């Protein structure tokens, strides 16, 4: 028995190592000499959702380099203090505390996901330091039944805003009267989008003919698609992540389902195309920005990003980039460079021009901006339009 235990113990340690090895990237930026502004970067750099955290941080670091190269904010250089939450919410709270009490930052950017961001907000309130997430989309991140959370901000729109936009698009573009919903039961993002879509669609006189759910990492959608096929509907709403959505799209098209498929920003990955292959047709999704956007600001960002990272930026990169510039803008306008000063300036932001659109901060601390619809038309060509 003991020997078995020792063997298993060794296996355990090995597993822990594997789990830890998903991290990567470079060490912390060294504090440059002179007068600097400390800004915390508290992200998932390893673990389950490291892809989002790392993508956000790439955008943030690029923006900070640009700001510093252009002379900084009020002549002061921005010093990013970066930590890894390991995709663990308790660790996010711990590190936010460290950034606010020991590293004396004026603002903390991140984490990327809603749960982790919510876990840092009580600490933000206690220390009066704003937390700004580039991609925490759950509705209750910035506001709950007690009202708006004073020190919580984000630069993306919320889940319900996105679901509503998708429903309106379905009616406007496809004159949809009947829709089916297929959502992911293992995450709240998918549920939030589906709920908002259902509400808006039915309020507009439409009907949800059928609704089904799958679990994370599902790869066989034939049963549910066959069920959908037997019914009469105009669009499929598929608010999930690209890993499962790509397979679902391919299997739906293989079965001969020809109706348009709508989704959310979770579709935004080249993996979607890899999974769906030539069947990626008549698929549209709500997104934060489109690389097709001809706006010079966007094209400049894309060129600079490509030069640095050798790949097209995705929405997380763009949101991270915008968030850094948004925070720097507020620090520049703040009456005093403290958490409270920056909080006031953030809340007063009007018509901030970012690569993910021009936005203002509303009374619920959400960034109000236009949704971009990105999609692949019936021929499979990439299209985009602003909503």
């Amino acid at each position: 028995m003991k020997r078995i235990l020792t063997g298993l113990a060794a296996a355990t340690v090995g597993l822990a190592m594997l789990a830890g090895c998903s991290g990567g990237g470079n060490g912390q930026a060294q504090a440059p000499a002179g007068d600097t502004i400390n800004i915390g970067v508290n992200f998932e750099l390893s673990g389950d959702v490291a892809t989002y955290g790392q993508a956000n941080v790439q955008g943030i670091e690029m923006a900070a380099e640009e700001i510093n190269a252009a002379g900084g904010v009020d002549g002061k250089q921005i010093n990013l203090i970066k930590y890894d939450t390991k995709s663990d919410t308790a660790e996010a709270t711990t590190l936010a505390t460290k950034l606010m009490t020991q590293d004396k930052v004026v603002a903390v950017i991140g984490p990327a996901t809603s749960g982790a961001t919510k876990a840092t907000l009580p600490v933000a309130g206690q220390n009066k330091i704003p937390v700004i997430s580039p991609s925490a989309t759950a509705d209750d991140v910035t506001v709950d039944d007690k009202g708006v959370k004073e020190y919580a901000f984000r630069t993306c729109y919320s889940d319900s805003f996105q679901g509503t936009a998708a429903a309106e698009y379905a009616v406007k573009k496809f004159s949809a009267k009947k829709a089916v919903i297929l959502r992911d039961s293992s995450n709240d993002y998918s549920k939030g989008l589906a709920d908002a879509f259902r509400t808006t669609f039915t309020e507009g006189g439409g009907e949800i003919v059928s609704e089904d759910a799958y679990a994370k990492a599902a790869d066989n959608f034939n049963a549910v698609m066959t069920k959908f096929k037997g019914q009469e509907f105009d669009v499929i709403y598929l608010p999930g992540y690209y890993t499962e959505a790509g397979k679902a799209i391919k299997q739906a098209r293989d079965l001969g389902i020809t109706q348009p498929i709508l989704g959310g920003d979770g579709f935004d990955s080249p993996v979607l195309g890899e999974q769906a292959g030539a069947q990626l047709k008549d698929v549209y999704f709500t997104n934060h920005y489109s690389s097709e956007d001809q706006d010079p600001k966007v094209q400049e960002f894309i060129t600079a990003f490509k030069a640095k990272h050798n790949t097209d930026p995705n929405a997380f990169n763009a949101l991270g980039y915008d968030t850094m510039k948004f925070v720097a803008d507020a620090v520049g306008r703040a009456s005093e460079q403290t958490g409270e000063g920056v909080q006031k300036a953030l809340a007063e932001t009007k018509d901030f021009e970012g690569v993910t659109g021009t936005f203002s901060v509303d009374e619920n601390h959400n960034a109000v901006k236009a949704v971009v619809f990105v999609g692949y038309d019936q021929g499979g060509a990439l299209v985009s339009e602003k909503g």
Partner: protein
Amino acid sequence: MKNSLVRQALMLWLPLVATYVIVLLLVQANIIDAYMQVTLATICINIVLAASLNLITGFTGQFSLGHAGFMAIGAYSTALVSMRWDSVFGFLGGLLLGGVLAALVGFLIGLPTLRLRGDYIAIATLGMAEIIRILLQNFEFTNGAAGLSPVPQYMDWTWFFILTVGSVMLISNFIRSRQGRDAIAVREDEIAAESIGVNTTRSKVLAFAIGAFFGGIAGGMYASYFYVIKPEQFGFLKSVDILVIVVLGGLGSLSGSVIAAFLLAIISTLLQPFPGVRMILYALLLIIIMIFRPQGLLGNRELSLRLLPRFGRRREAAASGTEEA
């Protein structure tokens, strides 16, 4: 006899009370600042988790991969009850309910599976934890994948101290009791234990349920300190994290679990300035420690203040020995 009891009480309680008071003063003087307090909270939670898993895996020899499941039950009970009755009684009620529910689930799972010998229990507990996580993800009242927030924060240094010290002491007393000795006998040799009249299934189930109870308590401590709980926090990797502490400290050493919880928190904190390579260095350190101490830091020995007088006596004996010679 009376004298030694007094001495024992002093040996045990004096350092404990002193620790409590000193830390409390340091917290109030803000020498232990907010960040160190969060780290201390994590250490306390990890101590209770590791000590309770050590009872199951280290002392009773049942390899469990489902401790995060018990933690989840405790966390959700505490969160749900204290969110409804936002008072210290709601918190304590939820904590207790969580512990009892976890013990009940442990009992129900343990009864059929612990009759088996070998590593079946590892698979069964892994399955149990996954079932718990997926149920929490799909129930309406647990708010699905989004989890529960904000959970009212009642945990402070006093509660952490009481719950951590209390849990470790109760587990340690159980191990020294008749039932605890039975459990150790089962670990050493199940057939031999059975042949001398130990009811092996009963011993295993009892240890499993008690371990589950304290796993639930640790979950409640977590929920009431870290504001947000989500089903995904209590996945397989959380169970592995706890197991790492137990194995590192030494299977069958409670003080080893305590030391490992501190050591891992210190390593983790020291590595925080290197975000990119942090988890790689952490894993490397674990590998190095396991190569040099394959039995864990303390093996199955215990480190306690009681050893001090023993050292003293040994020195006396050595001294008198030389005199005689």
